[in-house]
């Protein structure tokens, strides 16, 4: 039975009200996550701020909170990112280039692709176990920076590969065609045209992957990064600690001061991450502008 005009308009009223409530609901939820981020940052800042000074950055950890600092962890992290970058960038970008430019569409490519997609979803702690068994034990690299770097490289390799592939895919096919038609080989074309054109996209992906690796703790724990390190590593074979490990160590202690120290460490860590992410975004924006 059709509704009367009055029933119809009341029904419509209800539907509109529902729509409005729904929209407000979704908006509220979304903005609450912004609020959440603000709360989290506020919490960290409040707790850690009074510990954040030059002495904090330049001291080694200590049993006494007043004397404790993040120096060894910071240096360890810097060592770690550098090594990870040196290892994972060439391998990751090479893989992406191979899959996009050189490999056929055959079965082997498919298998590699599926592999990479699955490896991207493996929990980081499993990579830690792998690193322990292969790098620390089998290759007898001990609990060194190089073991940690190799393990972390394996961890972020899928991310770099996937991001690089996306960047390479955006290079217009016309450029490759032009190069081939001038009598260039695949590698000449790739090196002279595809790689430079996709470089910004690749760099953005690499920086984001590296910034993810900075925050990873579990794999480093597995391969045996120490939690109390009062020296600076001098070479890739030295043992080390890293910022997330130091922070974890401080958080796990019952004393309030160590929690505050942890907060200070977190501020330093977040600052490093912020710089890296800002660089990535800057590169991305600058190249988008240049392309236009």
């Amino acid at each position, binding site marked *: 039975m059709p509704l009367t005009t009055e029933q119809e308009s009341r029904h419509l009223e209800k539907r509109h009200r529902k729509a409005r409530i729904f929209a407000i609901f979704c908006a509220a939820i979304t903005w609450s996550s912004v609020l959440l981020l603000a709360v989290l940052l506020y919490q960290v800042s409040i707790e850690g701020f009074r510990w954040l000074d030059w002495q904090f950055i330049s001291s080694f950890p200590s049993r006494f909170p007043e004397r404790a600092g993040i120096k060894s962890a910071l240096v360890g992290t810097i060592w770690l990112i550098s090594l990870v970058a040196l290892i994972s960038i060439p391998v990751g970008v090479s893989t992406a280039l191979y899959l996009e430019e050189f490999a056929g569409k055959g079965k082997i490519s498919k298998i590699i692709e599926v592999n990479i997609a699955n490896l991207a979803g493996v929990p980081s702690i499993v990579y830690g176990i792998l690193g322990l068994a292969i790098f620390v034990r089998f290759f007898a690299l001990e609990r060194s920076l190089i073991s940690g770097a190799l393990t972390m490289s394996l961890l972020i390799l899928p991310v770099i590969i996937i991001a690089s592939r996306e960047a390479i895919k955006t290079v217009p096919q016309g*450029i490759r*065609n032009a190069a081939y038609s*001038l009598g260039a080989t695949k590698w000449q074309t790739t090196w002279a045209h595809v790689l430079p054109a996709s470089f910004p996209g690749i760099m953005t992906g690499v920086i984001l992957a590296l910034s993810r690796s900075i925050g990873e703790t579990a794999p480093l724990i597995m391969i045996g990064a120490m939690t109390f390190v009062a020296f600076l590593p001098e070479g890739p074979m030295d043992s080390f600690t890293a910022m997330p490990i130091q922070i974890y160590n401080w958080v796990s202690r019952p004393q309030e001061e160590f929690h505050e120290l942890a907060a200070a460490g977190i501020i330093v860590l977040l600052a490093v991450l912020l710089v890296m992410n800002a660089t990535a975004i800057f590169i991305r924006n600058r190249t988008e502008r240049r392309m236009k």
Partner: protein
Amino acid sequence: MSQFPDSTLAEQNLQMSKKSVLELRNVNIFYSDNQAVNDVSFNIRRNKITAIIGPSGCGKSTLLRSLNRMNDFVDGARVEGELIFGNENLYGKEVDAVEVRRRIGMVFQKPNPFPKSIYNNISWGPLINGFNGSTDELVERSLKQAALWEEVKDRLHESALNLSGGQQQRLCIARALAMEPEVLLMDEPCSALDPISTARIEDLLFELKSSYTIVIVTHNMQQAARISDYTAFMEMGDLIEFNVTKKIFTRPAMKRTEEYVTGRFG
């Protein structure tokens, strides 16, 4: 059905072989299981412009791309028959496709300059192929041949992407000419351009004829009639007729050809 109505095929083949740069004999091209080009045979004569015309989807671009082995990049593309270039079959077993493309150049439908400077666009091809002379002269010569020199001579090191569509296409022509190819293939080079740029490029091709051999695919019949010496008319993968352009457009031997060139279809 003879494509050359006036003398026997054998005589003609003999006559043509010295004057032909590229000879197509029974060329069949497949994309996986679909046949795109059926048993096409004709010759490309030196220092002449040969046009390939026909309605959309007739296989003319596919045929053109097979002349410099660009079809190699298409998955599932297969070429049968002979394409004789300098006494060798382009698709012979030992043939290096890269070498083929050094000597048979191509200009594409959509201008595709490298996102580099005008200068680098032109010098890159020769340099990677072992050029060791003066690149300045090379760039100037190529740009002059493409009738672009006057417009860009003061901004050679600016990005090629700043040029207009017509200028970019002339840059692509200059780039291809810098390789000094024996044959220049052009795949609908004006279809993405405005009428004025089109006219300029047509004039350019007329001048280039004396130094280069050109094969041009075009869906613009009037263009073919204006600039080409020989015309091949294709439909649905078949070569319907191949003859001197004047004949194709004034006294075509096949009825289908006549219907196409008078605009009754396509």
